[in-house]
């Protein structure tokens, strides 16, 4: 091999490897990988059930929960990872319960109920934040994530929660598929439909809460929807769709970080842009399903 070829190969390797020689990039990449795989799988349930707007409302519902966590952490500059997660989860669950209650009591359609809770929780979050003088958590980081600020110590909790959530979805796979396929048949087969649907809503809220720390409350929706939408166009069966969706989300992480490093742009947004880009490429290029 000539010296020129060696130098060329070295440059290419450097291009791909350089960002990942930095520890905070490696930590962020690992966090995004965990969140990406989790969102890739859970996003398939969101897509097949047509819950995209609901997922978006949960993402915004996290805001007042985080703000309350900050308000109750008076005197601390940083409310801590657990308090933020607990507050965010509470906000997501209130959004889920509120959406279900509005639907049931007012008889409104799901998208209308979800949009009502969405704007209510967002407005409530902004009001609470405006009252919190010690709100040290950067609102921009909340909305768009701060991937490169993820501490190595945060990874075990993120991984444990993601594993717990994916385990619960694996355990409830058949009930989830059946209620998504046809609620009447699910009920006739003895399935507690309302409980399964509540479990799905709690799982989605938990997914959003785990994900928003890494890619932000606005962009977590991108990782939930884009890989799953792309996978749905390439596969015929749900297990294959989940595996492909998780793979698309996973590959979006290193590619997004490469763009982010070399173009000096936001990391979380770059990952989501790659995932959406893959989805658009599939839309343009797919004529038939592979699996």
């Amino acid at each position, binding site marked *: 091999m000539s010296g020129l070829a060696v130098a060329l190969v070295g440059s290419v390797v450097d291009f791909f490897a350089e960002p990942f020689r930095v520890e905070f990039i490696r930590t962020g990449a690992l966090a995004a990988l965990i969140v990406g795989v989790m969102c890739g799988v859970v996003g398939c349930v969101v897509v097949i059930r047509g819950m995209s707007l609901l997922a978006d409302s949960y993402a915004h519902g996290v805001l007042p929960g985080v703000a309350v966590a900050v308000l109750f952490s008076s005197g601390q500059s940083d409310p801590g990872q657990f308090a933020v997660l607990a507050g965010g989860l509470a906000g997501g669950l209130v959004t889920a319960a509120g959406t279900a209650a509005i639907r049931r009591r007012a008889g409104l359609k799901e998208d209308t109920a979800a949009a009502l809770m969405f704007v209510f929780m967002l407005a409530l979050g902004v009001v609470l934040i405006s009252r919190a003088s010690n709100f040290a958590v950067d609102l921009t980081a909340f909305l768009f994530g701060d991937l490169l600020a993820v501490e190595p110590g945060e990874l075990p909790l993120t991984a444990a929660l993601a594993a717990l959530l994916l385990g619960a979805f694996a355990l409830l796979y*058949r009930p989830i598929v059946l209620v998504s396929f046809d609620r*009447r*048949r699910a009920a006739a*087969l003895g399935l507690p439909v309302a409980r399964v649907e509540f479990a799905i809503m709690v799982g989605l809220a938990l997914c959003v809460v785990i994900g928003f720390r890494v890619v932000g409350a606005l962009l977590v929706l991108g990782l939930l929807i884009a890989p799953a939408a792309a996978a*749905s166009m390439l596969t015929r069966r*749900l297990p294959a*769709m989940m595996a492909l969706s998780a793979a698309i989300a996973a590959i979006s992480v290193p590619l997004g970080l490469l763009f982010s490093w070399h173009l000096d742009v936001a990391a979380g947004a770059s990952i989501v842009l790659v995932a959406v880009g893959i989805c658009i490429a599939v839309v343009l290029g797919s004529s038939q399903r592979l699996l």
Partner: protein
Amino acid sequence: MLSARGASFRYPGAGEDALSGVELTIGVGSAVAVLGPNGSGKSTLLSAIAGTLEPRRGELAVNGRVAYLPQGIEVDRDFPVDVRDVVRMGRWGRGRWFGRFSADDDAAVAAAISALGVDSIAGRRFGELSGGQRQRALLAQVVAQDAEIIALDEPLTGVDRPTAARVGELIGRWRRDGRCVLVATHDLAAAADYDLVLALNRRVVAFGPPQEVLVEPTLQETFDGAIATIGGRLVDTSHRHPGAA
């Protein structure tokens, strides 16, 4: 196997009962045609037997597992399940929400697919099928449940003649096996082939053998006077397509 004593049913949020004062007893090995115009309570009764609607008053006793075929299905074209998956769902309701399928489960699914002749489309996405093909897949799901009581809500909607014949054979086999079969239908001629006929019009108008129920006065009361005699046969005109001859 199945009995009702003064049972009334009302959907959540509704102002009045969809079906009231139901009194009936159905034993093993009986095939029952459930007749009535649209909104008469046929689907209400079958869904109550399937356990998805509790009586508001009275009692409904169901002794045995129920396989229920509701009317129609709204599934997105892209919903990622194939026909085999849909048939397998029939086995999930037997306490198999978790864990692996047994050899018996796999055999029941294969037999159900074969019984409805959906072998050739078993790998096709359910949402991409025609209405008749979907109905065959859903009927196969019912067969896979291997239940003691089978409740079919207008099972022949959209199916071709060979499939209708297969369904007729299945009903005959279920009856011989000692199962209880209830079929909601508008077809008065077909109802004559059942052991019993239940005529509904938001209440039980008549219940008994076909020769007792399929008589003009009872049918006129059941179908609100929309029964005509065409070619010497009684025909329900309330359910005929506006453009039909």
